[in-house]
């Protein structure tokens, strides 16, 4: 797998998505499935895992400026080079017909490729998308191409005033979905997992953990006995039931188990 080794790509376009979020696209052909991620190296800075928010011949990542690496990345322009390796991890199982896609914040970046694949396969997608405020809404236009979109904001600046899981619950009370795909803050995922379990709807969530290697060796990304980079990032609800860490603990850079 030549592309899986660290190599560089030239940024094709840098797109402002929202106040603190940008998408970065690059041209490279490699086989990849919705839900997989790559390791993105900002040369001279650090390397972070990022979902592929676009999977065609032109790939893209969508990053929110929240810390040192993403801040550095946000300074990158068209024509600059970043290092990439991957794709890594497993992918969403999209074998059902009718999906609810639930995303919180930049979590949308991890699920939008699944929405696109579903739409392309002629399946039905409904998106519920939550953010703190109106300015944080990203990838909306693209999402709308794949199906209906419902919005929730913490401050009520647009759409439903409240958290995305509540909005998702309302939708699920109205309609029947075969499956839910979700990515966002872990508390949200935990709530959604509970809802789906109760309603007997299959849920798949994309998890995030601190990652060093991305290939199942360093152990940085452990979630109980799972390695998020290799066994995940996509987990079925049933895999998460009973885990000590899910929604409660993460591992820090030193490998300490710390409360979320």
């Amino acid at each position, binding site marked *: 797998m030549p592309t*899986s*080794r*660290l*190599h*560089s790509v030239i940024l094709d376009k840098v797109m402002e998505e929202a106040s603190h979020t940008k998408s970065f696209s690059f041209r490279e052909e490699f086989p990849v499935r919705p839900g997989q991620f790559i*390791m993105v*190296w900002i*040369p*001279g800075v*650090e*390397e*972070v895992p990022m979902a592929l928010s676009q999977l065609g011949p032109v790939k893209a990542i969508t990053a929110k400026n929240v810390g040192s690496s993403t801040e550095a990345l946000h300074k990158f322009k068209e024509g600059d*080079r970043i*290092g990439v*390796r991957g794709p890594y991890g497993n992918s969403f199982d999209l074998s059902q017909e009718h999906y609810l896609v639930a995303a919180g914040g930049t979590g949308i970046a991890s699920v939008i490729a699944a929405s696109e694949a579903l739409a392309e396969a002629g399946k039905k997608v409904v998106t519920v998308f939550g953010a703190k405020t109106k300015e944080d809404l990203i990838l909306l236009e693209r999402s709308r191409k794949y199906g209906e979109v419902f919005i929730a904001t913490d401050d009520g600046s647009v759409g439903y005033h409240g958290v995305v899981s509540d909005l998702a619950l309302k939708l699920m009370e109205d309609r029947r979905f075969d499956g839910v795909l979700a990515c966002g803050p872990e508390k949200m995922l935990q709530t959604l997992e509970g809802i789906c379990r109760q309603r007997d709807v299959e849920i798949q969530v994309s998890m995030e953990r601190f990652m*060093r*290697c991305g*290939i*199942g*060796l*360093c*152990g*940085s990304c*452990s979630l*109980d*006995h799972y*390695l998020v980079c290799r066994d995940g990032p996509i987990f079925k609800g049933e895999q998460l039931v009973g885990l000590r860490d899910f929604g409660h603990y993460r*591992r*820090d*850079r*030193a*490998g*300490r*188990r710390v409360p979320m």
Partner: protein
Amino acid sequence: MVEISTTVGRLKLQNPTMLASGILGDSGDSLLRVARSGAGAVVTKSIGREPREGNPSPSLVELEHGLLNGIGLANPGIDNYRAEVEVALQGDVPVIGSVFAEDVEFYGPLARTMEVYGVQALELNLSCPHAEGLEEIAGDADLISQVTAEVKSAVKVPVFVKLSPNVRDIALLAQAAEEAGGDGIIAINTVKAMSILPEVAKPVLGQTMGGLSGPAIKPVGVRCVYQIYEAVDIPLVGVGGVANGLDAVEYIMAGARAVQIGSGIHYRGLEVFEAVCREIEAFMEEHGYRRLEEMVGIAHE
């Protein structure tokens, strides 16, 4: 039927494969999972006195013929590690506690604490090529002898000393460990190396230099085990580039009584332990060996 159980000094192993230190070893759950995947023993991540965040990323990348890592001994620190050992011990295979320190004097207490946590043996990491302080100990027979002696007087479980290949004469260092009472030698740690990505004109690892593991270093590891076997009487464990049964047999014939596997997990998944065992058995059957022991060191004859 052939017999692949083995012993490394007082340590009895159902099979000769162990998880190498630093791979998946910071969490007890992962160690347990590896034990259940068929490893004959598991070695913990090298644990130090304090939590340590390690080096800036990238800290593990795949090269063409091996893996390059500069993790820099990130670890939760000994005080946070009790729970992990306790989980790992549920695996019913020996858990070997790896420890490291920047100063010779800290090895004893660290080792003692590990023993209290319940590990069946200790591994002294005197050999990480990309963590400050340790490189000095790695090449110095006197320091190695001092560390080994201190740990030996602090614990009752067997003490294995893990050596670095980045030295002039590894056999001499193994002798120092033996004379100081070491119960076995683990060889080798990673080979000091680096990689540059030409397109961005920068070293790939956040820490610039790191350690090479995997297939590229197997001939170096086999050489080291072979040399050490001629220099000491204590048992040896081979590590470096083992990914299949023949790799393991090569180390065993060079003088190892068991092998550790790290990067091999990348190439073959966690099934590598089971697979290596089955491949060793198949080899033994084809070539008329009945017990693993018959092969230990026979390349010296």
